[in-house]
């Protein structure tokens, strides 16, 4: 078992109206930025004990299904960031 840091991103499904993103976009335009659509999501980084990267990813997906995402409106993606404090290959690039 190794400790892995997993990054979980939860965001609204495509086609769902995002009031928070909408007002954020307006405010950015007020400040002079050429901002178009803004989507707001949540990022969780979770330390998990797992036997492999795949197992850690599976656990994170299960966390989304059981708590972090509401299937009616949310999509999610997961990514293993570090294994026992070391950055993973993907992260080094």
């Amino acid at each position, binding site marked *: 078992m190794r400790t892995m840091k997993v990054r979980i991103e939860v965001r609204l499904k495509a086609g*769902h*109206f*995002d*009031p*928070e993103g*909408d*007002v954020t976009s307006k405010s950015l335009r007020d400040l002079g930025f050429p901002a178009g659509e803004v989507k707001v999501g*949540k990022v969780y980084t979770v330390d998990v004990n797992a036997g492999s990267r795949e197992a850690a990813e599976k656990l994170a997906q299960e966390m989304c*299904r*059981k*708590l*972090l995402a*509401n*299937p*009616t*409106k949310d999509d999610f993606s997961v990514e293993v960031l570090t294994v026992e404090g070391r950055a993973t290959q993907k992260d080094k690039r």
Partner: protein
Amino acid sequence: MELKKSKACVLRVGGTNCDLEVKVALEELGLKTDILHMNQLADGTLSNYQMLVFPGGFSYGDYVRAGAIWGKEIFTKLRKELGKFTDDGKLVIGICNGFQVLVEAGLLPGNSVAGVPTASLANNSSAKYECRWIYLRVESRQTPFARTIKVWDTLWMPIGHGEGRFILPSEEALNELVKENQVIFRYAMPDGRPADGRYPHNPNGAAYDIAGICNKKGNVMGMMPHPERAFFGWQTPSQRGKRKARGDGRCVFEGAVEYIKKY
């Protein structure tokens, strides 16, 4: 069941509010009510009660999503007992945050504490916390909570929420809910017509102007407006210097008490 022998339970966790208002409302109607923290619930405690209330507020700081953490806590700690409670036909009501909790626990619009929500109370379309009085149209009397009112009656109650836009995963799911008469309250115009999505009458952009729904059996109801904040006449805002003799929210509790008497 004799009202004197019956009791209601208002559950509480960090961040809930209006628990005392619900207790005062129910006791005014003769139903003894205990306010219990989730941690005070031991095995079998629930069976002492005829009605369970999930009050409003911001349970666990609305972290993750409004109602999500408490909803999952119910799934992990109370699944069996609450399942038996609802199977026995006893009453459960979730008000505002309590409605969000019942949805997150899977109890509404579904039928069991499955832990997976089949609907969502998303951020208000207005991107604002909406805190004001709104009109409701009574759409169905499927639930005991609406037994003392008439279909198409117009009620006036306050709301206070940032995440109240009721949405379902599909058009079919909405049609099913309507067909089964599970839509109890819809946001309405002052004259009682449905708000038809129009702001500010529909304060959050909810699909089909949905403000309150029940389960198929009718004994579990969730609603975004606060009936306990519109119980006494003196809680209602004065109009031309006059106040209502009784608040419109009173009927929700009267319906529950009538049901318990006959249970």
